[in-house]
């Protein structure tokens, strides 16, 4: 292999794929990045067997070939190169990659690319095109509510459903549920569903390049994988096996009280309460008082700690329904308010043991359910 690339492109590509490198793997080759010539471009791939990322960069190819280069060393080295042009040539016999750039000349010990796990080649047949903006926002609004407890693997995933021209992502960690829908530009022929690790989606949101408008999602039948294909980047993830809970039935159908309030003031109040609720219980108490003839309704949020003290903040809200005192995990509240895009949200509640629902006002594509907390008897 003999290629020459731009330092900037190589650095960017390595940066993207190295997110899938597993630094502490027992398989040494997994700490490496696959570097291979691929139809006029240079392909960089890394995988930890659950998640694989490939990135293609422009290259001048003099001689075809491939090898795997220690990811960390390579990334650090490329970061220090000051010259624009980077020339790489592989000695196949010794598996040594010579990296030459300006006055710098380096030899890297590599591992034969034969040892690298094969990356899937998407048969682009059943690709579902999704707008990048939608996808990024969906991931942001859903992935955080997935569980991190490996004891319940299914809940560490995000349920992705495609039905007609509707794409839905849902996640739940046992205490809260986040659901986001989006319209697809074209209708799919058959309904599809998969549980994608939340971590893979978060990585996807991070690496989606700004230039792309659309991302193709491909669920090759019976492979237990999902592929997200962009112009120059491909992300492959293993799917999580199992049945995702039927979340539709968890969403309460009725409500006693609907409170509409400013998203940013609510978020600010929650952050304040969290300072005090952080140690120990994480409880924020929410006191909902409907307004009267002359007085607007109000919502009071309080957090307290045995050690640091307590905080209360009150804000105006337009409240429809009966008064209620309910407690939530303040972190759950904060996390959902941070991803709501509209200036106002509606908090729907009924009794202090029933879930609360948060919806952006004027946008029914998103909904979030939080279970209350209970102060023991």
């Amino acid at each position, binding site marked *: 292999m003999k290629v020459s690339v731009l330092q900037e492109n190589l650095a960017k590509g390595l940066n993207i794929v190295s997110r899938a490198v597993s630094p502490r793997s027992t398989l040494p080759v997994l700490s490496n990045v696959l570097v291979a010539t691929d139809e006029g471009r240079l392909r960089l791939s890394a995988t930890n067997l659950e998640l694989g990322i490939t990135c293609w960069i422009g290259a001048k190819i003099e001689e075809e070939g491939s090898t795997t280069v220690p990811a960390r060393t390579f990334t650090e080295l490329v970061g220090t190169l000051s010259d624009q042009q980077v020339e790489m040539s592989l000695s196949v016999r010794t598996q040594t990659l010579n990296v030459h750039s300006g006055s710098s000349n380096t030899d890297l010990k590599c591992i034969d690319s034969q040892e690298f796990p094969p990356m899937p080649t998407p048969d682009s047949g059943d690709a579902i095109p999704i707008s990048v903006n939608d996808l990024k926002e969906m991931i942001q609004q859903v992935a955080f509510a997935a*569980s*991190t*407890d490996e*004891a*319940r693997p299914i809940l560490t995933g995000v349920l992705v459903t495609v039905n007609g021209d509707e794409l839905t992502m849902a996640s*739940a*960690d*046992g*205490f*809260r*549920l986040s659901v986001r829908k989006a319209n697809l530009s074209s209708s799919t022929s058959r309904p599809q569903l998969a549980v994608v690790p939340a971590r893979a989606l978060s990585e996807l949101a991070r690496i989606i390049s700004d230039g792309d408008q659309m991302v193709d999602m491909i669920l090759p039948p019976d492979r237990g994988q999902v592929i997200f294909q962009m112009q120059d980047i491909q992300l492959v993830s293993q799917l999580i096996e199992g049945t995702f*809970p039927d979340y539709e039935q*968890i969403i309460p159908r009725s409500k006693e009280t609907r409170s509409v309030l400013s998203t940013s003031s609510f978020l600010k109040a929650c952050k304040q309460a969290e300072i005090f609720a952080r*140690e*120990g*219980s*994480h*409880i924020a108490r929410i006191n909902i008082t409907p307004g009267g003839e002359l007085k607007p309704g109000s919502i009071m949020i309080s957090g307290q700690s*045995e050690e640091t003290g307590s905080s209360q903040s009150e804000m105006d809200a337009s409240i429809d329904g009966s008064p209620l005192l309910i*407690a939530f*995990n303040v972190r759950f509240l904060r996390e959902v308010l941070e991803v709501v895009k509209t200036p106002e949200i509606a908090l729907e509640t009924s009794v202090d*043991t029933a*879930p609360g629902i948060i919806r952006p006002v004027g946008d029914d594509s998103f909904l979030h*359910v939080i*279970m*209350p*907390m*209970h*102060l*023991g*008897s």
Partner: protein
Amino acid sequence: MSIHILPPEVASQIAAGEVVERPASVVKELVENSLDAGATQISVTVKEAGRGLIEVADNGSGISLDDLPLTVSRHATSKLSTADDLFQIATLGFRGEALASIGSVSHLTLTSRSRDSDQGGKLRVDGGHISAVEPVGVPEGTVVKVADLFYNVPARLKFLKKDVTERRHIEEFVARYALAYPGVRFQLRQEDRHTIQTSGNGDRREVLASLYSLELAQQMLEVIAEYEQLTITGFTSAITFTRSNRREIILFINGRWIQDTALVTAVVQAYHTFLMVGRYPQSALFLELPPELVDVNVHPTKAEVRFRNRDHVFRGVQRAVRRALLAHTPVPDISRESFGPASDPVDFQRMDQAWPSPDQDFQQGQLHWEPRDRQLDESRVPLLRLIGQVAATYIVAEGPDGLYLVDQHAAHERILFEQFLQQRQTSIPSQVLLEPSVVEFSAAEASLINDQLPVLGTLGFQVEEFGLNTFLVRGIPQILAGIEPGAALRVLVEDFEEDETPLQAEFEAKIIARVCKRAAVKGGQTLSVEEQRVLVEDLEACQSPRTCPHGRPTMIHLSVDLLERQFGRRGAR
């Protein structure tokens, strides 16, 4: 009904009942006699759990031919002569009752040769009837054989427990005395098996090792203290080693084993905040007090005593034990000579060197009892600077006095435990589940849960019965959020020992400890720098940061001093 004087045999059988309850009481009386006779070797042989034969042989001063018949008659003693002596008792026996009592309920043979006589004698007592002394050639010392105990008191015989139980009582008793008298070579043979054998070389720790195990002996901390006429020596277990009951807290006063609930409480109190509720230390404490300050003549088997100044003794015991703990409980240090295995962090011998040993300040006369706050300070950890994580299991931090290795799991357990207790003072918040979870249990577990539903409620579990042996979990304590609810409930009731019906307080403490254990980060879990920092800070804030709720250490300390020595920097310049 007519009143009549009891025949002498019946009267003495009744009296015997006071002294001799069971085979172990015979062993006790005979061994005490041997000890009073200054024996350095005592061997006890038991057959049929003591009902067949109890034989105690010693190499003590022996009994002269003339005195032999006296020893087995009532109120005959060589140890006391005037009433005043009663207040100055320095021997184990003083009533002159034991041999007579035993002789009235068994076939007793007494063989003895006094130190200053060439001729030994032998005498039999059968149900109280004393035979004539028969001269025999025997080695110096005394052998007492008690055969067919209670043969003439069927009621007693009936009340004896199972053989294993009686044998255990005998063994416990001999073990206690072996420990109290390390200079005496003890041997116990039960049913032709050697069960206890000590060397008599005076090393108490060696006795501990031979009675229990080397491991236990190594875990025991040395107690040594003196407070105005009260000397306390002995051993008490490190906080890493606990028992489920108080039976292994044994006390001796002036060489006499006594039972005293108050003093046992003093020992347990010394462990306050160190041990989980329901866990107890193992201790063997030997108190020495001028005989006039303790009245041993208050209980028929001399098992209880009365102190002139009970409070003084109580406080003394508590302090002595607490001092031993504080001297050793500071973060287990690593030996000077070598980096011992981490699993052996409280090797007392090494630690004796690493810490000012209690007897050091004993000699310097600094025997004041630290005020309470001091104690807390000593168990707290200094502010630590996080360095990083090792093997995804330990957190390395620097303190003003060296390096700290923190076990992330044990440390997190401690943090959660204290948070739980703190929340418990008000109420433990429960996080409601999105979907109630249905959990099935075994019948035994289910009945345990049913019994404890109210307690579970106060601990933040919202659980309802839901059909046979099945429960619906609606909410779990916030601390456990992130754990599968069924598993969270299951960990509470799994492997409670079969017939264990835990006490309420014990159950709660157990549950809390289990909850924390389950919720704590595991060893092998990579933590972010932020998570590590929070863990270290939370640990600093704990009341008892040095042990996990189960008593394992949370950290190991490598002092700068130790590091310098290890690297040969000390004295090199």
